[in-house]
């Protein structure tokens, strides 16, 4: 028996499948939602984590045109502070390895940094700046220099491009702890300008430095929760959720009334949304880190009982 198939139906099915399949893969997005409480509370993270969180991308395009300003005063840009205190003499102990012919930090001074508005003005090789200051003479460095003269560096047998050498085991001498201290005066000067801006460069949008929402988000959450009188929803889990767009001023007060996202579908959801709105308004001003103002001046708090 021959089954007659309508070509248009087949074409329609195939077309539907194609379009829907294409749509499934093309439009599947995952909302960027803050993870629950694996928030890094700022005061407990380690130095490692901090540097990781605030690390930018060296090769990234500069997206923040504002110069680094840490103090409001007459504009006086300074050198890029990063890397200024990097040069540090190795500690000499009895069993310390013989000093290396070249300091490892060599490339830092000559390699021009990616263009930064503040650093542009006076690019200086840093070691020179250190040496200029007479009070910065380091006894250890002096000792090192003398030592270097005594033992001139021996060229190695095979001299391919210099390779970082494996650090040898060093023993710790508790009597020479003082030698570990860097006795130079701090060379950092505050950058001045019209308005405060603690981020010299935010890197690209994919850099991690710009995303500090875990920190200020947790602070916002803690503050707004104190004012939130959540309405009683009974036993039924209605999975309520109320999202708003809010704009904050520098002093933490609301710039305008929070704008709710969407219209609640049930009376309870309306009440839930209103309770959240009351909480946002009541709890202002919010005390959030001024350094991240650019991030928290406009964001979307989402009050929810949905388990993600």
């Amino acid at each position, binding site marked *: 028996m021959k089954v007659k198939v309508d070509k*248009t139906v087949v*074409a*329609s099915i195939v*077309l*539907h499948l194609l*379009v*829907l399949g*294409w*749509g499934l893969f093309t*439009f599947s*997005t995952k*909302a*960027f*939602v*803050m993870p*629950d*409480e694996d928030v890094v509370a700022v005061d407990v993270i380690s130095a490692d984590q901090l540097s990781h969180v605030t690390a930018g991308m060296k090769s990234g395009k500069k997206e923040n045109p504002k110069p680094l300003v840490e103090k409001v005063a007459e504009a006086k840009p300074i050198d890029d502070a990063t890397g200024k205190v990097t040069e540090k003499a190795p500690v000499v102990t009895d069993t310390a390895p013989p000093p290396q012919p070249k300091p490892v930090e060599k490339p830092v001074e000559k390699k021009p940094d990616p263009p930064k508005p503040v650093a542009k003005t006076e690019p200086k090789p840093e070691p020179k700046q250190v040496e200029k200051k007479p009070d910065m003479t380091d006894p250890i460095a002096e000792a090192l220099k003398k030592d270097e003269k005594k033992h001139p560096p021996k060229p190695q047998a095979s001299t391919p491009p210099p390779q970082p050498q494996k650090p040898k085991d060093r023993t710790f001498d508790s009597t020479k702890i003082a030698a570990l201290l860097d006795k130079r005066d701090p060379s950092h000067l505050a950058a001045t300008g019209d308005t405060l801006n603690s981020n010299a460069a935010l890197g690209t949008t994919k850099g991690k430095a710009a995303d500090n*929402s875990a920190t200020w*988000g947790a602070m*916002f*959450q803690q503050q*707004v*929760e104190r004012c*939130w*009188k*959540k*309405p*009683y*929803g*009974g*036993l*039924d889990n209605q999975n309520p959720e109320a*999202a708003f*767009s809010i704009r904050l001023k520098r002093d933490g007060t609301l710039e305008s*009334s929070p704008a709710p*996202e969407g219209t609640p579908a*049930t*009376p*309870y*959801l*309306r*009440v*839930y949304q*209103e309770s*959240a*709105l*009351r909480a946002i*308004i*009541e709890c202002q001003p919010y005390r959030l880190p001024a350094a991240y103002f650019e*991030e*928290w001046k*406009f*964001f*979307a*708090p*989402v*009050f*929810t*009982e949905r388990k*993600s």
Partner: protein
Amino acid sequence: MTDKDLSRQTPFRLSRRQLVSGMATLGVLAGIPVRPASAQKRIIVPEGEFVPLPIAIPNFVGGSPADGDVGVGVTQVITNNLKRSGLFVPIDQAAYIDKVVNIDAVPQFNNWKSINAQALVTGRMTRQGDGRLKAEFRLWDVATGQPLAGQQYFTQPENWRRIAHIISDQIYERLTGEKGYFDSRVVFVDETGSKERRVKRLALMDQDGFNVRYLTRGTDLVITPRFSPSTQEITYMEFGQGEPRVYLLNVETGQREIVGNFPGMTFSPRFSPDGQRVIMSLQQGGNSNLFAMDLRSKSTTRLTDTPAIDTSPSYSPDGSHITFESDRGGKPQIYVMAATGGQAQRISFGDGTYSTPVWSPRGDYIAFTKQGGGQFSIGIIKPDGSGERILTSGFHNEGPTFAPNGRVVMFFRDLGPGPNLFTVDISGRFEQRQPTPGFASDPAWSPLLS
């Protein structure tokens, strides 16, 4: 005229293929989720604890000096209702900065913010020229300064409490998203006298314990009163001179009649949601079965036919199912079956025995009395047998009945000297004693009066 000619004349006519692909594209486009600008960070404020809402209810002003007292009375009734619900914390009037609030003016919200009020109720009571009482109120959101609700009512002066309950319901509904339950009554068995010579009378009161009326004289023993959905009639069981019988009583006229004329004892009556039928148990020998009687035609329908005791039937709010208690499985348990009879489904499987099931007006839960481990507990369970939850335990709790909004359960507890009425929220919170003139048992909550 050929198709080609037609298509030339109607340039917007689509071919079938175009239509199909167009619809598919539209479908796909409609499925694309609308999302806010990706630059905006979304900060999650997760599930918080429920906190009762601080509300300020300054005294309703009087339209004339003579109306001041009724204004104060209405304010007290509203305050008491909202406080007893457990969902609100009325702020002490002594803390108010504005003692008198003009209902016609926008309140000074800063004065209410400073005492942490989140909602504000203002109102006025005015005696009209025709003798009626005019009640007005406004509900304000203190944080946003927006009006949330506002109404005015006219009534006879003696109904001022009723007006206060209606206003309470409006406030409750607007601030919780749930229907209120304050404009309702409770019928119960009032008990007086010593234990040996206890006099039991049917009594009716407002849900807050005021306006108590006695419906029977106490010469005969009465139990299990139940409200009709019309709220004008009550059905109950009375032990008279002969066998115990189910009666129907009109609350307004005082008229009463026997429901049906069966050989044998009838008990555990309850109305159907449309008020047209009464379902009850009829004892036959050592067994009892369920029957439904049409109140107009007086025709009866047998719903169960088992060699067991089937009793305490209760309709689902849509009238399609009934829940009842039966010992057909060995000991009393709760069953659910179609309102027309047929196969019954057991839904209670915990330790102990389950009795007096009653279906919530919301339809989501069935309340019951559970006996086991030397304790009587009041609990709720979903009609499919899941979500069993004990609300209160002890000696001796019994006879649950739901508030009209299905959020609160009333029951009676007898700690020895005599029973008293209690209410508890279906989450098990806010348990409190219900004020009654004396000992009280067997409560049944009416539907909303308005």
